[in-house]
């Protein structure tokens, strides 16, 4: 068992080491910090960024936008999928809208959002538009795959509608949502940052990426990418913590 675990760990760390070696070699070969900044320079930038007085607030704002995107799109998706599952007419209206949203290039949406919305709303709007169709599809799928035998059992025992929703439908939806929560939150973060890059809103990771690029400080861009990776990992940990706290891990 121990051997197996250490093997898994090794397999997780090894690719990162290879990647760092590749980066190191590449920076030596290219020998131009604007194109491929060296590891030392990148980490110097990273420490500068982390040490700056606005760092924490910047991170918190981007995290906040990501969480808002996740919650808003999930809530919207729950309502839309809920109505879709009871009304075919509603579903026939919603379905084309969802596939439209899923197929429009995200950059086009950002441009539209820049015209329509306050700059602060752009990244949230973009994130919601991107996540919503994924969550909608997933929740609808969850509702449709509810165990029919459990529903029949509830009916035989005269269990009320509310209890069925609360104790069978909602847990089924939460289970199907949690299975992709990691990738959904990750996508939300990416979309929010993309929106921030173009809207250049104050206190944002995306805005800072643009700033570093404007000064041709590629080391700074690399450093922010490392920050984003860490943020993405923090979100994974958050999901894991939530799964552990909620009923999800108890019965699986």
């Amino acid at each position, binding site marked *: 068992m121990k051997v197996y675990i250490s093997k898994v760990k090794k397999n997780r760390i090894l690719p990162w080491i290879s990647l760092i070696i590749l980066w190191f070699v590449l920076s030596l070969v290219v020998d131009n910090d604007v194109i491929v900044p060296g590891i030392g320079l990148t980490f110097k930038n990273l420490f500068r960024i982390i040490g700056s007085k606005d760092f924490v607030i910047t991170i918190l704002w981007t995290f906040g936008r990501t969480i808002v995107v996740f919650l808003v799109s999930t809530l919207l998706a729950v309502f839309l999928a809920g109505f879709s599952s009871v009304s075919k007419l509603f579903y026939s209206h919603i379905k084309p809208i969802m596939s439209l949203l899923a197929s429009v290039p995200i950059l086009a949406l950002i441009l539209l959002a820049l015209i329509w919305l306050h700059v602060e709303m752009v990244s949230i709007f973009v994130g919601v538009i991107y996540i919503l169709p994924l969550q909608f599809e997933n929740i609808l799928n969850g509702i449709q795959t509810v165990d029919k*035998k*459990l529903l029949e059992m509830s009916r*035989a*025992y*005269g*269990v009320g509608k509310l209890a069925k929703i609360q*104790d069978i439908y909602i847990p089924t939806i939460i*289970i199907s949502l949690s299975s992709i929560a990691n990738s959904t939150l990750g996508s939300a973060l990416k979309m929010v940052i993309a929106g921030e890059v173009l809207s250049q809103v104050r206190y944002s990771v995306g805005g800072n990426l643009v700033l570093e690029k404007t000064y041709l400080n590629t080391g700074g861009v690399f450093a922010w990418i490392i920050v984003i990776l860490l943020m993405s990992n923090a979100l994974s940990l958050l999901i894991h913590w939530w799964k552990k706290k909620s009923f999800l891990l108890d*019965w699986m």
Partner: protein
Amino acid sequence: MTLQIRNLNKRFNDLHVLKDLTIDIEKTGITCIMGPSGCGKSTLLNIISGLDKEDSGSLIGFDNSISYVFQEDRLIPWKNVQENIYFVLKGKVEKEKIKGTTQKYLNMVGLQEYSKYYPHQLSGGMKQRVSILRAFVYPASLLLLDEPFSSQDIKRKNNLIQFFSDLVERENKSVILVTHDLDVAIRLGNKIILLTDKPTRVKKVLNNIYRIEEMEENYIKMKKLIELEI
């Protein structure tokens, strides 16, 4: 007063499943219903429980308080044993009493230490015990069972039969048990009703002498009687 099923008919498209089916069910004790597979035994239970609707005929003396044990345990996987039982009691039993009643039954059958277990932590036999217990805790005067022991191996089946008959003895309920298992019918049924193949009618009604006097002789007699008919 008996529960009466009168001239029950049910078709599925062209298939005449139940034809003028007439059965009397005693208000206490176990009525076993046997018949060839696919003859509409489950359909009959579904009509009695209200899960399905009859085409014509009448059910007299039945009320809405019915509990149902299915072939599978049908426990909610994300609820533990205790919560699974609460689930069917909500709104039927006063809130303050739910916990006490559940606990009382769990203690009675020696399942109290499993009350916080999730279904996946229990064996197949244990799960079916919980599902049977759920049916007994539910405030119903009529209990329907659809092949409740059929997915169990012999040892588990024997344990479950014992578990079930102990509960029936303690609780005064009317039970309809559908089975294709001769052994189950003889060991549990006070009355055994044999059905024909589709379109299904009653072929024979037997009073089970083995349940009056549990002697091997009687068991063999009943077995022969049933085997003659099926």
